[in-house]
């Protein structure tokens, strides 16, 4: 079975919510929709206080290049355009909407019927993705229309669909595959057209045999889609690692996947692409796992964007267990701890993961014993212990020479370190400093 060659770790999988079907979460009485739910500049609000909006109406317009449209996830009246603290306590521009009824835009097709045929050209597909505010749902929330606008002189040979879901605990991608396999395959076909009809590979880790069989059966009825089972190893879902696992190609240091002739999209993104192109539905919903070993029940939900973490917790499990140490948005390896549970969820949130106090606590840091485990674990072939020393000493130029910017922040080094050194934190700090230095030089 295929996998990437260098490094990688095997964290406990804990996919305990994999049996829970996707339920629809009801909408609260008020939502705050953040204007930067994507990588890049925030969208500009285009609605005023008192204005009535419908579900799917444009409320934030992308005016910068690196930006994505934001649509209303609910129908109701705009209360105010103000700032709202995000999950990490930072105020961000937001549109507050008081929910009234559930009136959708007329153009959105809400029937369950699967539309297979798509007659749009590549340029029309990209325009549609831009209009509907589709972003990558694999974690980075990179605007999809930019990814599929291939720069001149470059050519994509493969579309690699990331269905590895290598993060522990997360099961939202798995549930989407089991319940919406046909829609996903239509979405993949649309993205293939956008790239000029290239071959598509769907990489799925072998710990999801059900998904592999469902997707393989479905892919057989489509042209140019092949399912590739992958050996379980974290971080299989990182784009450079996935490209290597599936196609055997390597993305050169400091380059993008397109330089290796590949474009990588998450399986959730493919579903969002299907809904945007075939059903005219903008990206206003997340599929989100609510899980944790100490929770009484495990869930997968279809949640409107803007629903707060507290609302999700209240609806699914009532209240947090007393032993809760951290609530994490994302998986245990790369997810971020949420400090403000009153914050609205945004595009790309894949989970509300509740970790117990004992499990969440970091072990005290001890001295590096130069065992080299971090080097063995690093999937990019870097030397995390060295970066740790260089960053502590303020030697950022040397860190740059040793390719600190190639780090994908997967957390394998910290995971494998017997001295519990916060290696990933140090490298992230180093990357910020190196980027600032490079910007200052220009």
């Amino acid at each position, binding site marked *: 079975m295929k996998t990437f060659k260098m490094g990688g770790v095997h964290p406990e999988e804990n996919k305990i919510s994999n049996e829970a079907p996707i339920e629809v979460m009801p909408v609260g009485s008020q939502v705050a929709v953040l204007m930067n739910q994507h990588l890049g500049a925030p969208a500009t609000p285009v609605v005023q206080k008192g204005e009535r909006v419908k579900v799917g109406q444009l409320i934030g317009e992308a005016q910068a290049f690196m930006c994505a449209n934001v649509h209303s996830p609910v129908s109701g009246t705009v209360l105010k355009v103000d700032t709202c*603290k995000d999950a990490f306590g930072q105020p961000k521009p937001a549109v507050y909407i008081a929910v009234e009824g559930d009136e959708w835009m007329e153009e959105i097709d809400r029937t369950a019927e699967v539309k297979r045929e798509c007659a749009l050209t590549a340029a029309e597909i990209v325009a549609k993705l831009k209009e509907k505010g589709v972003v990558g749902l694999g974690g980075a929330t990179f605007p999809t229309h930019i990814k599929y606008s291939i720069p001149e002189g470059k050519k994509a040979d493969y579309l690699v669909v990331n269905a590895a879901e290598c993060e522990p605990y997360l099961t939202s991608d798995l549930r989407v595959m089991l319940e919406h396999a046909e829609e996903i395959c239509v979405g993949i076909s649309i993205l293939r057209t956008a790239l000029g009809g290239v071959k598509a590979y769907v990489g799925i880790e072998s710990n999801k045999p059900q998904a592999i069989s469902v997707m393989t059966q479905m892919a057989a009825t489509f042209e140019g889609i092949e399912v590739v089972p992958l050996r379980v190893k974290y971080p299989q879902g990182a784009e450079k690692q996935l490209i290597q696992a599936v196609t055997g190609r390597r993305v050169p240091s400091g380059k993008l996947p397109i330089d290796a002739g590949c474009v990588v999209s998450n399986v959730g993104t493919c579903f969002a692409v299907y809904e945007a192109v075939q059903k005219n539905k903008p990206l206003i919903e997340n599929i989100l796992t609510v899980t944790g070993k100490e929770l009484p029940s495990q869930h997968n939900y279809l949640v409107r964007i803007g629903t707060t973490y507290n609302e999700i917790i209240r609806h699914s499990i009532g209240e947090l267990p007393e032993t809760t140490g951290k609530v994490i948005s994302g998986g245990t390896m790369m997810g971020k701890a949420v400090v403000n549970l009153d914050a609205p969820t945004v595009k790309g949130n894949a989970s509300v993961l509740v970790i117990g106090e004992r499990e969440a606590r*970091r072990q005290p840091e001890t001295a590096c014993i130069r065992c080299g485990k971090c080097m063995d674990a690093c999937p990019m072939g870097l030397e995390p212990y060295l970066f740790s020393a260089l960053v502590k000493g303020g030697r950022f130029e040397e860190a740059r020479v040793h390719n600190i910017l190639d780090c994908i922040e997967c957390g394998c080094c910290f995971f494998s370190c017997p001295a519990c050194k916060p290696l990933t934190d140090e490298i992230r*700090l180093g990357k910020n400093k190196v980027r600032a230095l490079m910007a200052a030089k220009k």
Partner: protein
Amino acid sequence: MSQQIIVAVAVLGVLGVLFAVILYFVAQKFKVVEDPLIDEVAEALPGANCGGCGKAGCRAFAEACVAQGSLDGLRCAPGGDAVAARIAELLGCAVEQGEPLVAVVRCNPSNCAGKRLSHYDGLRSCAFEATVYCGESGCPNGCLGCGDCVAACQFEAIVMDEGRGVPVVDAERCAACGACVKACPRGVIELRHKGRKDRRVYVECINREKGAAARKTCANACIGCGKCEKVCPVGAIAVEGNLSYIDHTKCIACRKCVVECPTGAIRDVGFPAPAVKPEAAKVAEAPAAAAVKAE
């Protein structure tokens, strides 16, 4: 025998003269002319190499002074006026007597240790914590308390007050080099005039949230109400972006704003007695009358 000695001495003597001539010409060719004044100026400097002047070290500062021939735009903060006067004497130029500065920490979180909203157990670095989230106090602008400024200070003038979770500057030791200002990712620390008799007034908050939100974040936050701006007799205070700022070049340390501030966000340092509102003093004299009025 004697002939051998003579030959040896002669050969060595000729070689010596030859090399002396070569060395002379080489020395002439590669001669570095350096103004002896640079050494004298460098001697007069404190030699802390703190970098507060913006130069690589004290020697670089001395070179810049001599090259410029004056002290315009150059100031050694740790040396202060005494060093400036000495350098001016060496250079033979006039010197402006600058107002001495001191680093000021503009944060006083009400969510201090014990009342923290979250617990941060990542890398002990403010620069990193600032990229992760708002910080343990919950304030999106305030001090993170990991002590990047303490590590940056070469004069041991900053210590972390573990109880309050913010650094405290020892004004006696502070050389106003500005290293802590550069180290702070949130811009909490500012260099301000030390003030006459070490008395200074400043806004001890940099929270830029709107009033209600700021108050929710921290009980001691500036809510940008503008009362201080109205009461200031010299127009030294301006409220911009929900935050009041006192211009230290204009402030006369009258403390009217300290009394007026509804959240106690304005700090007065070095005054013998706490500031009292004139009306409040009257009320204290006639409490009965005030009580009747209140009813």
